[in-house]
């Protein structure tokens, strides 16, 4: 990435600028691929961009950064996503 040599404070883009925000989760979205009808509602509404849209319009979840808000499960009309309590790794 191009760095700029100027006398001001510049920040550069980084995925995970606040660390692995997946650790914020209390509930975890679990996708049942068999139920998914590829409507992409979860993808467009996820506030974190952690629903990944695949080439064939199936979706996957980026658990490293998903904050567990539950919006994806809530907007899915066929209930292909359910929220399950996170099991914390020690």
């Amino acid at each position, binding site marked *: 990435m191009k760095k700029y040599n100027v006398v001001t*404070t*510049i*920040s*550069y*883009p*980084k*995925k*995970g*600028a*606040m*660390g*692995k*925000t997946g650790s*914020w989760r209390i509930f975890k979205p679990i996708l049942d691929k068999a139920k998914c009808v590829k*409507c*992409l*509602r979860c*993808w*467009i*509404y*996820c*506030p*974190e*961009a*952690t629903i990944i*849209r695949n080439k064939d*319009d199936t979706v996957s979840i*980026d658990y*490293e*950064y*998903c*904050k*567990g*808000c*539950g*919006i994806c*499960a*809530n*907007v899915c009309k066929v209930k292909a996503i359910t*929220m399950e309590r996170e099991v914390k790794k020690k």
Partner: protein
Amino acid sequence: MAIKDLPDTECVLPGSAACPGCPATMGLRIVFKALGKNTIMVVPACCTAVIESLHPHTSFDIPVMNIAFEAAAAGASGVEAALRQQGKEDTTVVAWAGDGGTYDIGIQALSGALERQTNFIYICYNNQIYSNTGIQRSGATPYGAWTTTTVGGKTEFRKEMGEIIQAHHIPYSAQTCVSYPEDLYNKLKKAKGIKGPKYIEIMAPCPPGWRFPMEKTVEMGTMAVETGAWALYEVENDKMTFNGKSKLILEKKIERKPIEEWIKYQGRFRHLFKPEKDVKRLKAIEEHTDQMWDRYRRCYL
């Protein structure tokens, strides 16, 4: 335009400082899909300045300039002038500010930029409070809502920012909402193609600020529109068009749902329902909403 047709462009990187369920990042994702990467954004003090995250990193994958709370439109005017000097007129300049930074402290800079015909898009994401500093009232906070500075519920009605903007007779202005991504996308796309000042306001229900569960952001926006608390419309060269459900409400093809259906799910209105129903204030809210729609019908139908 269907959801499938929206582009893959992502400029909000995962792992930001936004609260779970945040309407600001939800809206920004669509804004960047519509405007693309050849965009410079000016952000004043507001939640979004925090969402960018901590130096030396940022969660936004486009150039952003941070500026003082009152100065979003002034900063964007400067960026636009500099680009024009360099002949880089294909870059879209956007000011992205909160309702506090728009309705209240930034209104002077905004009005000036609109009057000077600055070629930019001003976007206000309206979460109806000063969220970043811990939920204080703004000119956009609705009547009756609790904030830390209106503990018994706000005693004044909100400003009609859309109508203040219209008094500037700019080429394009619109109201939209994070719950309607296609509407939001189309309005941003249209604004990008028009020269001169454009103003777009996005209804942005904020879970911690409004006191509702974080998975309900989308419903809270949908209900704001279906109850008529918020209208989806656009104004092109002084011609106003209502969109979606708001059009049906305007033309009386459907009735708006009672505002109660929207606010009863928000903790900031709990004192209007418990220990007993505050019939007087609930009635005042419904009457005020009816007056707004009557005025819309008189002026714009």
